[in-house]
């Protein structure tokens, strides 16, 4: 998958000589928000989840200890997945109604409703959680089976199974709704 926006942003970062966190932020923020939208039941919460993942990464100072720059992105993906799984997302949604900081940059409601009207999003939300995660990581984030297994904390065999059954289920749901 080639993300031209990400490529441009990466160039900006290189020119600016920004640190690792800034680099991860500029290059991957948008794609992680979109990944979260595929994992969560509420599209409105996806930005909160991704921002929380970045805050955790920064708070842990993990980046300073990582030798592999890709490990930072892997950490972010895993954290986004875990936050999407956990009940924290419900608290984040609740907290969203009383934000500490005004954020004019938040995704507008029009974009959210457009996403939620998409048939494939509705179909994804009918899938069992693990199938949905496997499909999103394999076919949206373009991870390999091994990388998907690592992020989900399951074996490669399980990823194959979730993906295969998830695609079948997705096809059935989309067929019914069309």
């Amino acid at each position, binding site marked *: 998958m080639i993300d031209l926006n990400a490529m441009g942003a990466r160039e900006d970062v290189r020119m600016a000589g920004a640190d690792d966190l800034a680099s991860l932020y500029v290059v991957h923020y948008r794609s992680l928000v979109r990944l979260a939208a595929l994992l969560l039941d509420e599209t409105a919460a996806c*930005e909160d989840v991704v921002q929380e993942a970045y805050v955790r990464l920064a*708070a842990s100072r993990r980046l300073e200890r990582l030798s592999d720059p890709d490990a930072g992105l892997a950490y972010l993906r895993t954290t986004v997945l875990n936050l999407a799984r956990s009940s924290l997302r419900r608290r984040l949604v609740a907290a969203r109604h009383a934000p500490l900081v005004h954020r004019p940059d*938040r995704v507008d409601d029009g974009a959210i409703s457009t996403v939620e009207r998409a048939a494939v999003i509705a179909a994804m939300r009918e899938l069992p959680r693990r199938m949905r995660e496997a499909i999103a990581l394999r076919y949206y984030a373009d991870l390999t089976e091994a990388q998907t297994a690592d992020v989900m904390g399951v074996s490669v065999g399980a990823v194959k199974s979730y993906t295969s059954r998830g695609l079948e289920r997705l096809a059935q749901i989309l067929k019914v709704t069309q």
Partner: protein
Amino acid sequence: MNAIDERAIREQLQRAVAPLDPAAPPLEELRARAARRRRLRYSLGATVAVAAAAIVAVVLVVVPGGGSSRIQVSQAPSEESLASYAAAHHGKHVAGPLETGSGYVGAYATKNAVVIARYVDGAWQADGSVARPHGAGQYILRLSGGESVIPGHASFAERDKGGDVTYFGGVFYDDNGTWRDARFARCANRELSCAYPGTGQPYGHVVGGKFVSIHNDCTPYCAAGTEYRVTWRWDAASQRFVVATQRVIKR
């Protein structure tokens, strides 16, 4: 056969979330939130450490015979002393103390590593650590120690539990002063899932001093897969575990 074209689903997913085009908030805002969280964590950690130190001091002063027991502890550390040390360093799932040829060692898990502590001059101190690739504390580590796992080496078997169904297992050991993950013969990786590529739910544990793992071939799918029980033997020449026995336990 997949009932839906993989390329089609890629395109549909990309198209569906494309309208989400968030302008990221200033990074400084997130950095400030991270800094606040770090300060809170440090202050909580300091409070716990001070409280633990106060409790230990009270026990040593008030409990009759506290002075003599302290001398005893310096010879053979208690599980409690190791647990206190681990707690003061944000550790959990404590294993040990384990007596080795070079003194007592213990281990505990932190968010992204297993830390090995050594008992030196009446106090625990960090001796090394083994990074855990999954990190982030979503895995529960259960540690058990014994020199029988890798003969002649202080070693700990480890079980990582992820989610609600998946188990991994591994062993780490003292390789002449450096703590390492033990490798397995069928791959160059430490993980059992690598030792049996493509299998599901590898699960490692110690039985009768031997490291044993259970693998599911997930064929045609995991619930109906064949399960194998594998006993591993440490091969000193190649410095890795090799399969000693393998048998089917469930078809």
